[in-house]
């Protein structure tokens, strides 16, 4: 029995078992919940690294569930993109769980602690399941599992509007699920298969049929809602700003990215690049929508005064960057889009964790009250500044690399639309600079309301370490971009078939 051949299922099953163990252990002793979750997700992180190594050396891994060969059985298919997503998801969610220990003890009621960790583990399981599965219907079920965990986690917040925000999220998320199910059903009806690789072959004679057009449109709208792509983003600012900060970091950094992953999978694996670029130009439609998302999201973010609302609207803009890269469908553009998934999840995760630390220590949410925090919480605010620079795309941070690739991809297209997209990327970065630099400026140089001596009062070490690691990641992967590119570049090339 060779254990290494079971890596794709182990990465999902280990946190799943931990999620079910959690209530049992938490029932006896609440304080063991956090170590259990940390151990389970650390194991997943190690497996993700192993998977990444295997994929780079030997290529795509295909795992047959229960020994049933596809297309009859369920296949877990791990290629470069999946491995890339696995590493991103386990890395950021591990740090979010480490951060949760101190945060949850103070910000949430005591009896919510056990369900918090159970749901968070289920959320991570679902994200990993989405990226490793090779079956359309399986994908639908896991997307729903992800959404259910996310609804409950948003409702768990102690904020006044938590239940209303969660209900709004649920209504829109469920609408998205209906569309995904209907799109999957259409694909099954015409081809008689649900396996993605098999589907991509069997669907080719049907290119040009109205059923395929409708199926693709339904899938795009469904995943668009889950991704919060403009104009389907209305649930995002409520849900992401009201959720507990550690959950906001996971929701904004990872959950909406898995929606983007589903869009990439549907466009380039289930359908062929030839179809989505030429026959039914979904990619160029997505690019235009994404360009609008970048501008509108940034403008909304500028008008916010609440720190977490601003970060949430910034996510709308940055999902635009990712989808724009996917929609460009050029080598550099798609590499940039995929790379931005990783860079944005690190930077946005760091920013939300910093916001959580600020709320934890001072309770301030308004960005104009942040003056003087640079002296009070120097480490947190330094990390915040680095992550903010990464969001803007100032070298040598990681955000610069992905935006550089996006710009190259836009120009690579060689049409007038490509120049427009390049302009939008520049303008979007400038607008991002407006609202992040405003916060940083306020923190370090803002006018203090009370002229008293400010004592240094940092967040506890358990919260600082994840923040510092994420901020360090923003710098390290900006200086050594070859590390994530080793997976992102072949992923884009394999998807586009170039």
């Amino acid at each position: 029995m060779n254990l290494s051949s079971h890596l794709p299922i182990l990465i999902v099953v280990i946190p799943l078992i931990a999620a079910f163990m959690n209530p049992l252990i938490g029932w006896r002793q609440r304080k063991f919940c956090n170590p259990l979750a940390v151990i389970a997700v650390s194991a997943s992180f190690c497996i993700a690294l192993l998977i990444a190594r295997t994929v780079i050396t030997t290529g795509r891994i295909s795992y047959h569930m229960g020994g049933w060969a596809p297309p009859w059985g369920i296949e877990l298919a791990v290629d470069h993109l999946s491995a890339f997503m696995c590493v991103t998801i386990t890395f950021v969610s591990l740090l979010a769980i480490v951060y949760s220990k101190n945060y949850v003890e103070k910000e949430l009621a005591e009896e919510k602690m056990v369900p918090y960790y159970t749901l968070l583990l289920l959320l991570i399981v679902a994200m990993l399941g989405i990226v490793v599965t090779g079956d359309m219907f399986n994908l639908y079920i896991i997307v729903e599992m992800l959404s259910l965990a996310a609804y409950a986690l948003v409702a768990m917040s102690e904020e006044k509007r938590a239940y209303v925000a969660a209900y709004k999220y649920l209504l829109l998320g469920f609408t998205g699920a209906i569309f995904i199910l209907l799109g999957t059903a259409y694909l099954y009806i015409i081809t008689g298969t649900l396996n993605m690789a098999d589907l991509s072959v069997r669907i080719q004679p049907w290119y040009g049929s109205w059923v395929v057009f409708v199926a693709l449109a339904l899938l795009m709208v469904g995943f668009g809602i889950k991704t919060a792509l403009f104009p389907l983003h209305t649930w995002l600012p409520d849900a992401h700003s009201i959720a507990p900060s550690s959950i906001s970091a996971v929701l904004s950094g990872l959950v909406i990215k898995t929606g983007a992953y589903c869009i990439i999978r549907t466009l380039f694996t289930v359908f062929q690049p030839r179809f989505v670029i030429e026959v039914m130009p979904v990619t160029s439609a997505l690019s235009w929508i994404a360009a609008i998302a970048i501008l509108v999201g940034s403008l909304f973010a500028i008008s916010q005064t609440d720190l977490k609302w601003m970060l949430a609207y910034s996510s709308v803009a940055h999902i635009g960057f990712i989808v724009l890269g996917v929609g460009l469908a050029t080598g550099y553009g798609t590499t940039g889009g995929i790379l931005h998934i990783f860079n944005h999840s690190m930077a946005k995760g760091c920013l939300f964790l910093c916001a959580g630390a600020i709320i934890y220590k001072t309770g301030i949410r308004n960005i104009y009250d942040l003056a003087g925090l640079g002296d009070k919480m120097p480490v947190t605010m330094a990390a915040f500044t680095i992550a903010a620079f990464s969001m803007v795309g100032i070298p040598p941070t990681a955000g610069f690399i992905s935006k550089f690739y996006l710009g190259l991809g836009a120009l690579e297209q060689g049409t007038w639309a490509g120049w427009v997209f390049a302009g939008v990327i520049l303008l979007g970065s400038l607008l991002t600079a407006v609202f992040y630099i405003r916060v940083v400026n306020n923190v370090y140089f803002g006018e203090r309301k009370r002229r008293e001596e400010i004592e240094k009062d940092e967040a506890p070490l358990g919260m600082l370490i994840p923040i510092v690691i994420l901020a360090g990641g923003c710098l390290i992967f900006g200086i050594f971009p070859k590390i994530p590119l080793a997976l992102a570049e072949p992923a884009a090339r394999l998807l586009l078939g170039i």
Partner: protein
Amino acid sequence: MILEFILGNFNYWICTALFLIGFYAMIAKKNLIKKAMGFDIAETSIFLFIISTADVEGGTVPITMGGEVLYANPLPHCLILTAIVVALTTTAVALSMAVKIYEHYGTLDAEKLMEL
């Protein structure tokens, strides 16, 4: 000709009508529980749609008893069984949230809740 088209595809018409009813309830009704009922109706219409496509004319249950048997496709039923579990869970979450919303704000009117 047209009559044949309508009668021949009656399962699709029923599903479409149910879907639209459900979608209308989700959008237009103000009460949160009626919205939940709306999305259940819409989802059920899709379940019916998928199951109705599994039917084979003259087909029986897919149990082999030796020999060639014409049977209905069993896979859509299995898929929908799973999807029903998902729909049930979502409904349970939605209704429990509605209970909590009523406890906290004393109303289930979506428009009043948006003003908070």
